[in-house]
């Protein structure tokens, strides 16, 4: 991207016009409403919402324009030179006020939204923004119009999260724009005509029964309270509003917590660079897990003689009454002494390799940094890892090898500049919903979406082409495209010559991969493969966004190598709208990896076996450090069950904010391994399946209870501020880590408020060298979000990287050829179906948070598996029937739902449900480079019938308001 050469190009053109007799300067194209506002003139407006397309329907903003017969809507009209506008003339004011009066005349006696708690507020201001403007313009409804109030529609309270009271609707259609143009879910429509006009969900279905995905954009947009979040109706006054970041996915939406009486009552979207006030159902409505009565509030110690029982994971552990059978409450002193003491004892007796730590991708950067520092300097080995291993480990392996960096090259919002985006192995509307809204916006604007996935998911509705390739055949499909580019002369020759290396090897290897040869393997017709390849190469900018479908295979690294090759030979990287974007899952998986919470690298990907890095950190931390990379997540499970003779046998673990007893593959083995540990310390907010198997449980802080930074998929470092204190005796994670560190003889001594978080952040910043050099704590306080690389304090942050060179040894991208490697376990006669595991919109990963969030649970309370109609017919299944899915490693009984996007011969399951844990069946076979398990492919048998495991609820605060009627 070139900086403008001429300063004149930076200046906005201006336009001079008159407003109520005063000369005013507007920017070219700026509306009268906005120009007026900038000059302190507030013209009333209702249907206008800043950021949304102006619609000009309410007519509250009408102004006189000299020479025009009728009044004009100032929200839609741009000022032109010499225009004479009157916003406050008698004629303009009369219509503005009449509009407000007419709308007020149809409002119900009792409204749904007002600021302030007093009776006066209740009386006067019950209808949100309508009341505010009426009050400012001194508008009351005359009795003659009051007497003509319309026949009011009935309330629709069918949705668990939102109340629909259309008696307060002013037909401004902000919600229609919110749903159709912002989030592009196309649920809300404007139906009927004239005075019967109403907003409807789908074909006038109750909201709770519609295709609404509960993103809540409509309740955020509604000016009068006709659409409201059920948890926060009426008075909008709160004790405090605290700015933070959403704790769920890697999009990193900025939010504001509304806190009243020490409870979060609602969450608003904040205008952050990744989300621009948009949220999804989890971020907006899934906050009350924080207040769930099952929060761990006291340190717990396993009672002597009570064996660890992996068999009881599903049945017990959910009801706090059951905990008393297994654990006793303890003081922090005792619990910390025991936790650290025993870990230290194991280390001293069996050696440093006998310990391992799993940190959290959901905690803050500071927590991740301290955790890996504790393992490296306290435990004395590099046995530290986190769930990135189960996520993009293979993508990162390929990226570090190819381009020298595992982070994204372009941010999601850059899609705006793309001619084509390939979404491969990713289901963004479910897993990165707000990122998906940008994709949908771009598609509506002409960007071509290519969806490549064995499952056709909702983003497919907006795709120019869908490539429903056979599961496991990514390399065949991608190599066919690379073949096309090379054979048809579509390479960017300059780029290949000057910025890539190893092209000849790639070219040689690709010879056997023509689309015609690959078509029968991947199931996509050759002509379609060629068409997509051509379009990819020729488009003005092409970006690849990918997810677990690419990475969670034994050939995940190879899959990613192909993606890197495809963008490189077409020159589609290093410029706006192009590049490589592995969509980061967890809210802080990027940050946790950056902070060094991985076994083979120090902070900022400096290899532990690199002598320079090793020496630097020994000095920085003033401790001898292990030179050898540690073991990864799945390898650690094997090391726990290794024979005593193995010098690397792991006997003690410290797990913070991770749930391997649900997220690891082959759960029977993983759980058995956890049970076999001599000593397991678990630090978490709930009694997770992993905590159930612990020796010591340390109750920790949930995300709204901490101040810290997190790094999203876009390389934005964002600040979350603490909104609440942890409940009971639960403590901040940073405090717990530091207390444990003390007890294994680490002298840290971080000073400052919020457990010294600012000091810890700064130390991490220095450890990471250049990458976040310019992002100081103070700068984050001011700006709330800064993109890295950010080399100095006045560097605004570089959203696009690799524009000049790649951070590899020779500055070029290395093209690595890939060949077809089959999945580790193919279907056969006994196990004829492919099991694909993944996630769903409403539930996050192992479900520990979201299944304890009342709204999310109300929307999706039950474990289900998805099959296409054809397969269901073959097994004589109806939607809702019970089936048993079985692999060589385990089985679950579950209800089936129909999804024709799932291919024949495959069955899809989310892994969020402990009573039907998908990972009981998955295959722990690893990609050799990334060490990531093959979650996306194993062989299962599906039979009708079975007895589902008992579902024990999470003591949700469910009331009538939340039931779906």
């Amino acid at each position: 991207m070139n900086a403008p050469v001429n300063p004149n190009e930076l200046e906005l053109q201006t336009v001079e016009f008159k407003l109520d007799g005063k000369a005013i300067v507007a920017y070219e194209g700026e509306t009268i409403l906005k120009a007026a506002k900038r000059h302190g003139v507030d013209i009333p407006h209702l249907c206008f919402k800043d950021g949304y397309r102006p619609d000009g329907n309410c007519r509250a903003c009408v102004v006189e324009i000299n020479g025009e017969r009728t009044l004009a809507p100032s929200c839609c009209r741009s000022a032109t030179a010499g225009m004479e506008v009157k916003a406050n003339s008698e004629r303009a004011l009369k219509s503005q006020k009449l509009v407000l009066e007419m709308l007020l005349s149809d409002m119900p006696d009792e409204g749904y939204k007002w600021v302030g708690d007093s009776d006066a507020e209740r009386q006067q201001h019950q209808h949100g923004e309508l009341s505010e403007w009426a009050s400012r313009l001194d508008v009351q409804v005359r009795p003659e119009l009051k007497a003509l109030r319309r026949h009011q529609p009935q309330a629709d309270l069918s949705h668990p999260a939102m109340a629909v009271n259309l008696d307060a609707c002013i037909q401004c259609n902000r919600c229609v724009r919110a749903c159709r143009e912002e989030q592009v879910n196309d649920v809300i429509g404007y139906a009927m005509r004239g005075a019967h006009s109403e907003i409807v969900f789908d074909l006038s279905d109750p909201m709770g029964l519609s295709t609404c995905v509960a993103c809540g954009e409509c309740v955020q947009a509604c000016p009068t309270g006709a659409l409201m979040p059920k948890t926060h109706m009426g008075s909008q006054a709160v004790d405090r509003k605290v700015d933070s970041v959403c704790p769920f996915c890697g999009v990193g939406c900025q939010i504001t917590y509304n806190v009243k009486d020490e409870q979060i009552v609602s969450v608003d979207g904040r205008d952050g660079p990744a989300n621009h006030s948009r949220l999804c159902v989890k971020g907006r409505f899934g906050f009350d897990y924080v207040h769930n009565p099952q929060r761990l509030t006291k340190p717990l110690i396993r009672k002597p003689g009570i064996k660890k029982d992996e068999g009881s994971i599903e049945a017990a552990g959910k009801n706090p009454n059951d905990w008393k059978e297994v654990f006793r409450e303890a003081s922090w002193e005792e619990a910390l002494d025991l936790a650290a003491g025993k870990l230290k004892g194991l280390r001293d007796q069996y050696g440093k390799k006998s310990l391992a730590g799993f940190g959290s991708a959901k905690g803050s950067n500071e927590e991740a940094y301290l955790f890996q520092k504790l393992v490296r300097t306290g435990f004395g080995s590099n046995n530290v890892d986190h769930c990135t291993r189960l996520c993009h480990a293979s993508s990162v392996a390929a990226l570090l090898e190819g381009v020298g960096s595992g982070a994204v090259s372009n941010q999601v919002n850059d899609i705006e500049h793309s001619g084509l985006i390939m979404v491969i192995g990713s289901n963004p509307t479910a897993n990165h919903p707000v990122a998906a809204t940008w994709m949908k916006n771009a598609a509506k604007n002409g960007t071509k979406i290519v969806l490549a996935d064995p499952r056709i998911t909702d983003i497919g509705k907006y795709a120019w082409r869908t490539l429903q390739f056979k599961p496991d055949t990514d390399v065949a499909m991608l190599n066919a495209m690379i073949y096309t580019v090379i054979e048809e002369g579509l390479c960017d020759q300059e780029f290949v010559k000057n910025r890539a290396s190893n092209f000849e090897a790639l070219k040689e290897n690709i010879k056997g991969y023509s689309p015609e040869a690959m078509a029968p393997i991947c199931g996509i017709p050759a002509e379609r493969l060629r068409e997509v390849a051509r379009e990819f190469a020729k488009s003005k900018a092409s970006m690849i966004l990918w997810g677990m479908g690419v990475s969670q295979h034994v050939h995940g690294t190879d899959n990613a190598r192909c993606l890197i090759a495809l963008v490189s030979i077409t020159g589609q990287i290093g410029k706006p709208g192009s590049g490589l974007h592995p969509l980061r899952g967890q809210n802080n998986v990027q940050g946790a990896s950056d902070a060094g919470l991985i076994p083979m690298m120090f902070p900022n990907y400096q290899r532990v076996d690199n002598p320079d890095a090793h020496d630097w950190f020994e000095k920085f931390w003033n401790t001898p450090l292990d030179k050898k990379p540690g073991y990864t997540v799945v390898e650690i499970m094997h090391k726990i069950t290794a024979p005593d003779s193995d010098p690397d046998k792991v006997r003690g673990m410290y797990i913070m904010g991770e749930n391997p007893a649900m997220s690891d593959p082959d759960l029977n083995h993983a759980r058995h391994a956890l049970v076999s540990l001599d000593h397991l310390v678990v630090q978490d907010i709930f009694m997770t399946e992993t905590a159930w198997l612990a020796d010591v449980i340390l109750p920790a802080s949930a995300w709204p209870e901490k101040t810290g930074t997190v790094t999203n998929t876009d390389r934005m470092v964002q600040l979350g501020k603490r909104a609440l204190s942890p409940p009971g005796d639960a403590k901040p994670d940073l405090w717990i880590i530091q207390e444990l560190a003390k007890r294994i003889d680490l002298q840290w001594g971080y000073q400052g408020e919020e457990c010294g978080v600012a000091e810890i952040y700064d130390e991490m910043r220095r450890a990471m060298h250049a990458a976040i050099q310019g992002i100081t704590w103070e700068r984050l306080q001011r700006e709330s979000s800064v993109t890295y690389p950010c080399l100095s304090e006045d560097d605004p942050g570089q959203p696009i990287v690799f524009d000049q060179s790649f951070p590899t040894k020779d500055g070029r991208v290395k093209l690595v050829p890939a060949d077809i490697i089959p999945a580790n376990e193919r279907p056969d006669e006994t196990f004829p179906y492919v099991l694909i595991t993944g996630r769903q919109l409403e539930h996050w990963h192992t479900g520990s948070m979201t299944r304890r969030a009342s709204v999310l649970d109300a929307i999706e309370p039950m474990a289900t598996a998805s099959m296409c109609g054809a397969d269901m017919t073959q097994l004589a299944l109806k939607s809702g029937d019970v089936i048993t899915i079985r692999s060589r490693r385990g089985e679950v009984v579950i209800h089936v739902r129909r999804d024709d996007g799932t291919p024949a011969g495959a069955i899809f399951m989310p892994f969020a449900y402990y009573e039907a844990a998908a990972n009981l069946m998955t295959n722990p076979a690893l990609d050799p480079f990334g060490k990531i398990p093959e979650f996306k492919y194993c062989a299962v048998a599906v039979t009708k019938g079975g007895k589902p495991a008992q579902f024990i609820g999470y003591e949700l605060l469910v009331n009538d308001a939340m039931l779906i009627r």
Partner: protein
Amino acid sequence: MIELRRGAGAYICGEESAMIESIEGKRGEPRMRPPYIAQVGLFGRPTLEHNFETLYWVRDIVQRGPQWFSTYGRHDRKGLRSFSVSGRVKSPGVKLAPAGITIQELIDEYCGGMQAGHSFYGYLPGGASGGILPASMNTIPLDFDTLQPYGCFIGSAAVVVFSDHDKARDAALNVMRFFEHESCGQCTPCRVGTSKAAQLMQVPKWDQSTLEDLSTVMVDASICGLGQAAPNPIRCVTKYFPQEIA
């Protein structure tokens, strides 16, 4: 190539930009202007939109020359109009008559006079939106720009003649209900105004203050001509038939 598209009967889809919206497959809601449809119209392209009567005459005018069309007309007006006359006349129907003809001439020369037992009381010169005039004002030439001084307009020249058997207020209420029914519902003045006005016009003694306020906001702030013209029947009855609403 001529492509015919059928509407589904909504009156508002006769409004030029609403018609375009409808042809594009969307709700028939008028657009904000500017930009005008001559700049941004159907499928975003500059668009010329005319009613069929205009299109019909183009062929003759091209063939015979513009002067020919101008040889027609009465009372210093030029051209021909198709007046769709209905109501209490002996022979209603479509009458091709000189532009500028007065209502009395139209009734007498083209419609066979009033029906037996009916005496001329009032008329709508231009369809639902064109206003209502009393029989005492029967010498106004009916054409573009001739009726504006009286708060009326010719519109589509759909002339309705009513007699001493009828009440102007009934016609006005009928028309307002029509607008209420046909309003697209997009903007507050028309959506709410037509509905409230129709209710207020039902009572024997009209609340003229409220009706005038509603009329003002509809005329000044509606998005399109439907809302802007909807107050015409109210204002005409108030002005020309005050005895009916006192």
